[in-house]
């Protein structure tokens, strides 16, 4: 059962990554691209966890938890860059 469920989950997450890449390429403003990168980090966390679910290796769950802890730092850095680029 784990194989079927993880196949479905990995397929859904792959489609989500493809759609997010479309927005990352098309996104008219820099804020749209930063939002797409934020979602890509979250999808990477979910992909690592889904692979841990499929392989039965619980060590990968800790990898995903670590990525949860540091994933938002990039969003903060991009937001600071966006504020800084607005000033003359």
């Amino acid at each position, binding site marked *: 059962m784990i194989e079927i469920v993880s196949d479905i989950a990995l397929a859904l*997450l792959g489609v989500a990554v493809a759609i997010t890449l479309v927005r990352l390429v098309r996104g008219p403003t*820099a804020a749209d691209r930063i939002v797409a990168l934020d979602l890509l980090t979250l999808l990477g966390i979910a992909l690592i966890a889904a692979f841990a*679910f499929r392989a039965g290796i619980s060590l990968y*769950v800790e990898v995903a938890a670590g990525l949860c802890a540091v994933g938002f730092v990039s969003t903060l850095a991009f*937001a600071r860059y966006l504020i800084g680029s607005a000033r003359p």
Partner: protein
Amino acid sequence: MTIAGSVFVLVGSVFCLLAAIGILRFPDALTRMHAVSKAGILGAGLVVVGAALASGDLAALVWAILGVAVLLVSGPVAAHLLARASLRSGNSRPAQLSIDEYARDR
């Protein structure tokens, strides 16, 4: 535990896909941020907790709950800062907003 973990992983994947559809279909950077910071965080957190539940390892479950807690705390902070940055840098159009509370601070 395997069944519960499978349900969590499936529901979380569906929420991740909904976040991606939202980021593609919504018209504005602020509304796209709305899809990412709610559906995306909920979906990723559900998948992580589901994988930890299915592994049956208590240490992995503790790690997963810690990671999801950090995600739930840091997500709104990052979304708020990004929304403020996109408003102040002029990347989102205030003409679409019916209430613009930031107008006097800008």
